[in-house]
């Protein structure tokens, strides 16, 4: 705040300001750097497996987000805000929510939309209603649905050897007819087509956790995403209520609908959503109970649309839908002050 230098000449560095005079060390930038660090293992592992196309996707995603924010501030002569690193986080999340072979110009449009339309137009970090990365992804997905659904697993990615090979089975398994589709799409087609479970969901745990090459960059390793999420939880960067509500309700509902809860948590970007997207501060509720409700809402929307909607990949829309409800949820779950309307009763509650 408005510190002014010493009027009494105590020392050149002497300043005056309002209480409190000390502050917790965690700044906004630190928080964003932690999120980047937590995403890094999954991102690097994706690059390691996908090679050049993944590097291009990450590069264009992050670059277009940062440049859009930079240009916006520069054109409107605002204070530059790229130093808070939130645009880098958005770029990383955007890149991780699209397939590695997404044409670079689609990534670029995604980045421009994410930052320009979903963030800066609303007034910048702190004022946006919807998660920028998810808006970017949703818009490019809808605009180029044809292009995006044609994207196949990169050919010629060498399978790793040793014990690892056993885990990295291709998604399609027996159902060769839909080669290149994600495990989730295969599972959905299987359920719709045969009404049974020819596709062994339990066999998919290993690949989904460690090396899954079908789907978006963020789906390569659910295991590394869990690791990153746990780091964020341990560091107090994110509140446990959102991921617990989200993952818990996905598991519970998919079990209730007769499917495999673990498969449903690991597939379709649920973990990326639960740990890294739904937990976006700006677009999720601020109240404790509100966050739990928000997380549960994301999971319920995600699973209901996954099982009963036209497409199984609905994480993006689940979170965006709940983003829209966040202000309402906050209003409903506003905490009651300590001592709120507890008159005479309090005396009797003696220990």
């Amino acid at each position, binding site marked *: *705040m408005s510190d002014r230098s010493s009027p009494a000449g*105590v020392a050149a*560095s002497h300043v005056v300001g309002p*209480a*409190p*005079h*000390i502050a917790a060390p965690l*700044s906004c930038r630190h928080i964003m750097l932690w999120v980047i660090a937590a995403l890094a293992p999954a991102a690097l592992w994706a690059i390691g497996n996908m090679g050049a196309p993944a590097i291009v996707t990450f590069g264009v995603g992050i670059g277009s987000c940062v440049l859009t924010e930079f240009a916006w501030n520069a054109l409107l002569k605002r204070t530059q805000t790229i130093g808070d690193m939130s645009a880098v986080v958005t770029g990383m999340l955007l890149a991780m929510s699209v397939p590695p072979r997404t044409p670079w110009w689609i990534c670029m449009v995604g980045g421009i939309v994410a930052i320009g339309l979903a963030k800066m137009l609303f007034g910048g970090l702190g004022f946006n209603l919807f998660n920028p990365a998810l808006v970017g992804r949703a818009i490019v997905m809808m605009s180029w649905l044809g292009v995006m659904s044609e994207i196949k697993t990169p050919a010629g990615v060498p399978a790793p050897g040793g014990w690892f090979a056993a885990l990295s089975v291709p998604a399609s398994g027996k159902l060769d007819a839909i080669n290149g589709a994600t495990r989730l799409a295969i599972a959905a087609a299987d359920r719709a087509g045969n009404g049974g479970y020819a596709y062994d969901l339990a066999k998919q745990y290993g690949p989904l956790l460690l090396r899954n090459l079908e789907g978006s960059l963020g789906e390569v390793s659910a295991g590394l995403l869990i690791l990153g999420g746990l780091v964020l939880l341990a560091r107090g960067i994110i509140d446990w209520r959102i991921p617990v509500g989200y993952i818990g309700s996905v598991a519970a509902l998919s079990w209730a609908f007769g499917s495999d809860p673990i498969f449903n948590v690991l597939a379709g970007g649920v973990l990326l959503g639960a740990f890294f997207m739904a937990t976006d501060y*700006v677009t999720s509720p601020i*109240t404790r109970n509100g966050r739990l409700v928000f997380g549960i809402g994301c999971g319920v929307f995600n699973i209901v649309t996954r099982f009963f909607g036209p497409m199984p990949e609905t994480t993006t829309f689940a979170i965006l839908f709940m983003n829209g409800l966040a202000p309402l949820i906050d209003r409903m779950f506003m905490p009651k002050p300590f001592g709120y309307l507890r008159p005479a009763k309090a005396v009797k509650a003696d220990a």
Partner: protein
Amino acid sequence: MAVRLFRGGVHPPDRKEATASQAVARAPLPERIVLPMSQHLGAPCQPLVAKGDRVSRGQVVGSVDAMISAPVHSPVSGEVVDVAKALTPSGARVMCVHIHPDADQDLATFVPIDAAADDVAAIARAAGVVGLGGAAFPTSVKLVPPKRSPIDTLILNGCECEPFLTCDHRVMIESADAVVAGAARIASAVGAKRVVVGVEDNKPDALEALRKAVSEAGADIETVGLPTRYPQGAEKQLIFALTGRVVPQGQLPSSVGVLVHNVGTAVAIHEAVASRKPLMERVVTVAGAVAQPGNFLVLLGTPISDLIEAAGGLVGDVGRIVAGGPMTGQSLASLDVPVVKGTSGVVVLTAEESAPHVDGDQPCIRCGRCVEACPMDLHPFAIASHADRRMWFGVERFHGLDCIECGCCSYVCPTRRPLVQLIKSGKSALMVKGVKR
């Protein structure tokens, strides 16, 4: 006894190690004593002396006939050199009696107070005792509880949850007997059956000293260690921790039958009753970026610059200099202000420690940390943003009046929003408008 945990709060580094083991030493006699006529909450005193008058140690130099007030006594014998306005730690210019102390002082004697022997409230009033924890509310007022809500529990606050400060810690160790005696006197004055001293568990030696004093005195006083968490020493949080009672919104602790006094205040009351000694000096922690941090017994009215000299002077790049603790104290623009009754410490922060505040003015990112940290379960950002837009109804609707101004919200905010500052402005605006609370 089961201790209850209040929700929220923060864990700032406690930084007490430099002074916690430093015995209280008397600060040197200053060349000038400046006694503000308003060192307490309530009506300011009128000066009773004029320029040129001789005063003795213990003599009343200012008082007023209002219910909520506390007289001011000269801590030295000397000559009144001026009666004029001067700057106080709060930043306000108030009427002060300026005294030039005699070179040879007999600090062992004083003019005893004049009050009925058996009326503790009247004695506290005559002795000018106020809450020494920092709030400086006149103690006599609290010793006359409202008739409709009898007091059954007296809590002595030895939490000292503010970082850096160790004055209460030292008082509990060095004057444990007086703490216990003071507690007994207050308890019998208000008719409290249960007496509990709450001490944060980062001060095991203080608890030990108190327990010893309690058993030696054969007193019926509980001593309870509390988890170290700021603001454990806030009145409502402390009452909840020790009794499980929740003070309803907008009401005083007496509404749940509890009275809370700081341990230092108990000592002052004991001295006032036992030896008729008025409040003329107090223990002050001088800590942070000074050469020899320590605890000092300081005559009220001593300039803070003298006190910093007594602690060896400032060292390094000095940022904020705070009267009181770093969470709620006053940042001083000038060191030419006196120690007053409510000055528990002088904390010198380095430029670096004060730096996180400088680069601020980012918007709220809705991280929820302020909500999580608020010990009153408020929504600090909502209150602050309404206050910022001068939408006072929002301050009221989000219960801004329940804010205890602990500063936890501002402390944790990663974008350094001046939350408690805005909330305070909202509260005063509501008070001006006459919203009751």
